[in-house]
């Protein structure tokens, strides 16, 4: 292997989602695999995960929409409005479907702080929608930090008393934490569900395929850490451990997969990992950057 050739193990990891997606497309084309219905609920969140999904590339969102699934409902993107949209939601619940949920579930005062629509004159709260859809779905995927563990929506003082999707349901949920979730993490998990069923999950319900190692494990600045050479300010090229990088406690494959069309990622852009893909984000990952850190006698 020369310096210009990618590490085969890293390349294999990076290609994991693509291979699943292309396999699924081939099987759907030759008739050995059926498309499945998909419902994407947006609850108490910021739409960041659906925007991230729209940013997916090779293959991207259009592929999901046309080749992999019958995308029946999404309260952000669909053209239907008001009662018509809710009619589509309830008609979709009558068949088999996979449920993807973005955003946490607001529970305060019966969940009235997040209302996703009106149906027959009644407000449909996030709590009601996720329970009605969640108990009927063949699989439930919690997409992003808020759906997986509460995330920003449940951050202190959590005024809307938000809870993660798993806590609102009495069934297994696949968690894809990240703020936002990488398009590959969702599309790869969905392709795995279509072809092979549930992927191997860790103890927190995350697919090992994407969340098996920490950011620190494959970080491009890891050799600096191992040699005790640390950045003193943002913009320095060394390991940002002393600036409070959360890569060592965050499980995700960002260093290998990268973002925005596989171009770059936070550490590559001279920012600390803020642990957005780790349970407990954001409260448990703060402070995101620290400057007055003890450096020892040799690194003051």
């Amino acid at each position: 292997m020369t310096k210009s050739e990618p590490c085969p193990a890293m390349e294999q990891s990076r290609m994991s989602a693509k291979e699943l997606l292309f396999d699924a497309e081939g099987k759907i084309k030759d008739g050995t695999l059926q498309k499945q219905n998909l419902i994407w609920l947006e609850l108490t969140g910021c739409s960041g995960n659906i925007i991230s999904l729209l940013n997916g590339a090779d293959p991207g969102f259009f592929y999901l929409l046309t080749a992999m699934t019958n995308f029946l409902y999404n309260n952000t993107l669909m053209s239907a409005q008001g009662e018509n949209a809710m009619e589509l939601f309830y008609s979709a619940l009558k068949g088999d479907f996979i449920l993807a949920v973005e955003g946490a579930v607001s529970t305060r005062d019966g969940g009235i702080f997040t209302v996703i629509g009106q149906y027959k004159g009644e407000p449909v709260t996030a709590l009601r929608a996720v329970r009605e859809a969640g108990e009927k779905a063949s699989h439930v995927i919690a997409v992003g930090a808020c759906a997986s563990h509460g995330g920003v929506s449940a951050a202190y003082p959590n005024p809307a008393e938000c809870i993660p999707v798993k806590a609102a349901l009495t069934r297994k949920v696949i968690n894809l934490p990240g703020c936002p979730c990488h398009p590959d993490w969702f599309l790869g998990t969905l392709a795995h569900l279509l072809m092979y069923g549930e992927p191997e999950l860790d103890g927190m319900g995350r697919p090992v395929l994407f969340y098996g190692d920490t950011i620190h494990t494959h970080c491009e600045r890891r050799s600096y850490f191992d040699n005790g050479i640390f950045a003193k300010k943002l913009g320095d090229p060394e390991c940002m451990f002393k600036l409070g990088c959360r890569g060592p406690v965050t499980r995700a494959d960002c260093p290998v997969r990268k973002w925005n069309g596989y171009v770059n990622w936070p550490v590559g852009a001279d920012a600390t990992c803020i642990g957005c893909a780790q349970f407990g984000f954001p409260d448990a990952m703060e402070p995101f950057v620290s400057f007055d850190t003890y450096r020892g006698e040799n690194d003051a």
Partner: protein
Amino acid sequence: MFNEYSAKDPLRIFEEINNIIDLLYITQCRTTRNALLNRLRRLLAVLVSAARPGAPYGAVIPAGNSMAMQTPYDPPALSGPAPTAPMQNIRQAMDQRTFTAAQLAQYNGKGENPAYVAVNGVVYDVTDQPGWAAGSHFGLKSGLDQTSAYISCHTGQPMLERLEVVGRLVK
């Protein structure tokens, strides 16, 4: 990042092997399982090298010692039977330096102060631990007694063995 114990520390090796076995019972993650198995193999290699005839510390390894059942959050007792060499080192470190809660609070990883935390009365240095970047870990701050947080998150896991003991917490 694991400590590389030498064959001089058989009790710590037994202790970690026991904790790894506990963890293997409960882990569902294949990657974690493989990492733990690799670690077991490395620890066994250290013990095998020590047990070979003529090895300098071969005779030190006791059979069926009680330390193997010690939990990671259970610190070495300050009274009781005479300790073996590695435990003696830890006890010496604990005896040489004591911290009150107020003194410990200074060691918050900021400025000129390294990052220390106390667990079950023992004060550990976490300054260079990867999970304690800039002196904090999952919202927990250094300079404090983190016993309850440790027990709730890391019971049965070989965490404390990796840390340097710097003293003990006193009232």
